């Protein structure tokens, strides 16, 4: 039996009167790559953001690495250092160089020395293919490069799991490949990953499991070939038809 890295039980989240998550249960094992797909407003990003408590759940339990994040007595800041997060809008610190983006939290949160932090940062820049851009400012980079720096920044904290919130949705089409390539290598190295994405090809090839969400619940899940290739649920079929063949979706 493999180790459970992320355990979500009965997760509910409401914004005011609107319930966005209506009871989600999920267990993700070490090394598993799970892709979450679904229409906009289905709650998939909220699910991801609840896993590191960027959104405070209304109900349910989140356990990551054996630590219950939903316990009010948990040191959430310490727990978050184990959970890397990559944002749709990159969210690089615009006033810091690429290198400083990678070292600031290592030094101020993990208490690493400057030398150690920089060495870890350079290793991770190497990993995403941007070792030569360490001194650049974020605004000088393309979107694809910024997102790879975003991934490297999260990896520099040596996280146990990585969360990706539509990491390629804000990119020009020709830049998507570089970012997905980095994510694919990360998956091959055995990182536990929860990825909200619209990249069906990536989900099909890299994911161990695909979750289809709609209306705040997981409608269908399983092997990517089954969920994407031969969906059982009507809602999944409708969504995939719209995504995979948008020009004929209205017919």
């Amino acid at each position, binding site marked *: 039996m493999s180790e459970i890295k992320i355990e979500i039980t009965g997760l509910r989240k409401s914004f005011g009167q609107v319930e966005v998550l209506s009871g989600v249960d999920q267990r993700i094992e070490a090394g598993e790559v799970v892709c979450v797909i679904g229409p906009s407003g289905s709650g998939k990003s909220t699910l991801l953001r609840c896993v*590191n408590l*960027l959104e405070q759940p209304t109900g349910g339990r989140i356990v990551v690495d054996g630590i219950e994040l939903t316990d009010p007595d948990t040191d959430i*800041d*310490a727990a*978050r*250092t184990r*959970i*890397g*997060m990559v*944002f749709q*809008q*990159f*969210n*690089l*610190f*615009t*006033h810091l160089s690429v290198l400083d983006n990678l070292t*600031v*939290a290592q030094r*101020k*949160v*993990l208490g690493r020395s400057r030398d150690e932090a920089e060495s870890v940062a350079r290793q991770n820049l190497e990993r995403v293919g941007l070792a030569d851009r360490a001194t650049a*400012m*974020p*605004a*000088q*980079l*393309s*979107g694809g*490069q*910024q997102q790879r720096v975003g991934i490297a*920044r*999260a990896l520099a*904290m040596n996280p146990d799991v990585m969360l990706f919130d539509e990491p390629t949705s804000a990119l020009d089409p020709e830049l998507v490949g570089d970012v997905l390539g980095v994510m694919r290598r990360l998956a091959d190295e055995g990182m536990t990953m929860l990825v909200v994405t619209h990249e069906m090809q990536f989900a099909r090839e890299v994911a161990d499991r695909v979750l289809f969400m709609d209306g705040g619940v997981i409608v269908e899940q399983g092997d990517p070939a089954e969920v994407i290739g031969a969906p059982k649920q009507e809602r999944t079929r409708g969504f995939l038809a719209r995504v995979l063949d948008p020009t004929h979706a209205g017919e």
Partner: protein
Amino acid sequence: MAEATRPAKGGMSKRQRAKVGRGVQYVILLAVVVVGAVLADWNKIGEYFFNVEVARALFPSVITTALLNTVVYTALGFAFGLGVALLLALMRLSSVGPYRWISGAYIEFFRGLPALLVFLSVGFGIPTAFEGFNLNRNLTIMLSLGIVGSAYMAETIRAGIKAVPGGQLEAARSLGMSHARATTTVVIPQAFRIILPPLTNELILLTKDSSLAFVLGATLAKQELTQFGRSALTSYESMTPILVVGLCYLVITIPLSVLQQRLERRFGPGGKGGQGSGA
């Protein structure tokens, strides 16, 4: 259809009319300058405003005493005011109700008072209210200018903090930074880059407000530019000191503007070290 784009009445196109309009403006401006120059008594102006001997007599003390005092008073007031303003801005953005109320009341109160009243209150009110508690002159000016400046700067800083995209705070929190740590290392540095222009504005305003120190009275060695100019005006019976002192203010404020533009180019939106969209 074609008629509508053709020259209308008078045979002039829109562009031609604009050209004529601008020509008229230049003529009026020139006329005002000429009339002013003809009516002015240039001999008197020369004698009163540009009296070289009077100007020479003002040096070097106008620089070594008056200009220096103005710079010192402004720097003290700005430093104190900026610190208080940052605290007020954070309090106003706090989730703790009483912090927000106190900060809001402070800002509304001191923003609405003339700076002169603040100087009088601090300078004469505090020693009266707390007997035996005498503030020295520098401290009084620092408090007065700081209080005046902080009420304005607090709102500027608050606007700057709110202008930093929420994703920056989220990214910092997701890396394990506490809210306070994320605010100090990520949000505030970016906020200050955004508010560099209005903050420079505040500094220039405070430079001029430092002239209000005259209400506290001063020995010659403690006079700042305006008071120095007024004393000289009386003793030389010439307007020249006012002109010299005025130029001294510009000697302070213009370099500040240049510095601001430099910093803005370096750090501001779109700058090398600032925010901006990806290439």
